[in-house]
């Protein structure tokens, strides 16, 4: 009994430390962004002429917009592709083919972002450059991000589809629904919450992705006029400028980190909500 109590206390301390990690990170981000949050008026992130930190201009909007554009573009491509892949695995492929394809998607999920970025840099960007210079662009970033979040969407949708009770599908089939009628009318609604949660998590991942985007997006701070224009995302900006940022500039970078973290926190809380109501 005494060993149990001792162990419980040790574990409790460990768990507390683990839980406090989040708080510690948040605290440090806040602490480092404090000069910007108090010293600069926040409206300057919107009203300053441009992003020229060394000239004291901290216009964050183009980067925020680029971040949102790149992520939503990636989702627009990855959601249909991912759903199609999941439907294929669950409802169409032979067990053998399904296993092979699912394995392929899992392997894709295991490829590190730097390799995606490298591939985008050496293969995709030159191709797009042939078509419409400069190659490193919003489009390249969207394509690379698509590849990165696709496995996530596929695998969560797969899990959600598999969790749909067989009886439901058998009943639908007994009613004479075609396979697609069954998928669209029964399986998709039943798996909806799980799929949505997966998509939200993918969005969070895309928003926070740094290296791959940094390598292929061109990193010019601007409002893109076309998908061939280079852009810089918030995360890439941190990676680019963190090394030499000082004083206000450094604080602003921490603010953008904070913005990213809050965005992602909201998204994961939302995903958690959907996850919880999966069977409701």
């Amino acid at each position, binding site marked *: 009994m005494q060993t149990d109590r001792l162990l419980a206390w040790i574990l409790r301390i460990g768990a507390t430390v683990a839980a406090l990690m989040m708080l510690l990170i948040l605290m440090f981000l806040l602490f480092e962004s404090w000069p910007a949050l108090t010293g600069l008026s926040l409206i300057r992130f919107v009203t300053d002429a441009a992003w020229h930190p060394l000239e004291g201009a901290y216009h964050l909007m183009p980067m925020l917009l680029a971040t949102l554009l790149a992520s939503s573009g990636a989702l627009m491509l990855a959601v249909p592709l991912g759903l199609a892949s999941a439907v294929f695995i669950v409802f169409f492929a032979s067990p053998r083919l399904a296993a092979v394809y699912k394995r392929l998607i899992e392997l894709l999920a295991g490829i590190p972002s730097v390799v995606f970025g490298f591939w985008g840099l050496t293969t995709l960007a030159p191709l797009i450059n042939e078509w419409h210079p400069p190659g490193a662009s919003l489009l390249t970033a969207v394509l690379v991000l698509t590849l990165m979040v696709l496995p996530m969407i596929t695998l969560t949708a797969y899990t959600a589809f598999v969790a749909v009770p067989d009886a439901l599908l058998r009943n639908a089939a007994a009613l004479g629904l075609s396979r697609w009628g069954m998928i669209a009318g029964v399986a998709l609604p039943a798996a909806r919450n799980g799929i949505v949660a997966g998509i939200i998590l993918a969005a969070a991942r895309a928003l926070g992705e740094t290296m791959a985007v940094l390598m292929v997006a061109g990193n010019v701070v601007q409002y893109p006029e076309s998908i061939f224009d280079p852009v810089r995302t918030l995360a890439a900006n941190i990676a680019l400028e963190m*090394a030499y940022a000082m004083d206000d500039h450094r604080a602003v970078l921490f603010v953008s980190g904070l913005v990213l973290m809050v965005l992602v926190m909201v998204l994961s809380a939302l995903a958690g909500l959907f996850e919880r109501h999966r069977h409701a």
Partner: protein
Amino acid sequence: MSLHISADGYLRFYRTFISAVIAGLMVFSMTTAHAGTQRLTLTGSSTVAPLVNEIARRFEAQFPGVRIDVQTGGSSRGINDVRKGVADIGLVSRALKPGEEDLHAYTIALDGIGLIVHARNPVVSLDKQQVVDIFTGKITRWNAVGGDDARITVINKAEGRSTLELFLEYFQLKNSAIRPHVIIGDNAQGIKTITGNRNAIGYVSIGAAEYESRRGVPLRLLVLDGVASSVDNVRNGNFPLSRPLNLVTASAAQGLARQFITFAQSAQVHDLIEAQYFVPPDAD
């Protein structure tokens, strides 16, 4: 079916694994403790870094037990890290600015900033106004300056890079006026981008550009206002866009840092400076 064996086996595996890890770490920390290494951390300009790396190797060879680590990130990082105490010596590829009087700078070499294009780009020279027009987006195609009929890809340096600051200063531009297509950090990244894009133009350290082009990298330094971007022109003071390469410390250098800086300023490393296509400071 003999699951119990695997279960017991796992326990044994845990123990072996953990003891192996601990043993490994102990051996590792012991070897390093016995070495009694003295360490210098240098961070900053990517222009200075390759040179300092070479100097550091020679220094380490002469003073065993010393380890010198060099990381890039731009001159501003060098200043920043020195002030924060993260680095012992900062690498800064320009003179100290007003507001940086708290630091101590030691010049080890001179360098220039040259405009570069791909080796297959027919353009060989530009004047000051053409450069300004290209970088501010008034000229967008190469044929306007005697090149191919192709869109110009403008490569600009990221903020915090002294190469950018000098470039802006010389052409009397504001960074906000420049219309870039690609933003690069280190010199090497600029050179790499140029070699991957026939229609790009950028500017980097002359030393770095010469070093790479002599190694067969397909790039060309442009003639600016009739003056060739070359080490010779930097040496004889003809090239307008030149700058000192400095080692910077937070307080007057002492101990190992002092030793290293003295070494880097001595004639023992002139061959290294020449090999990187920079100019030793006392040569002019």
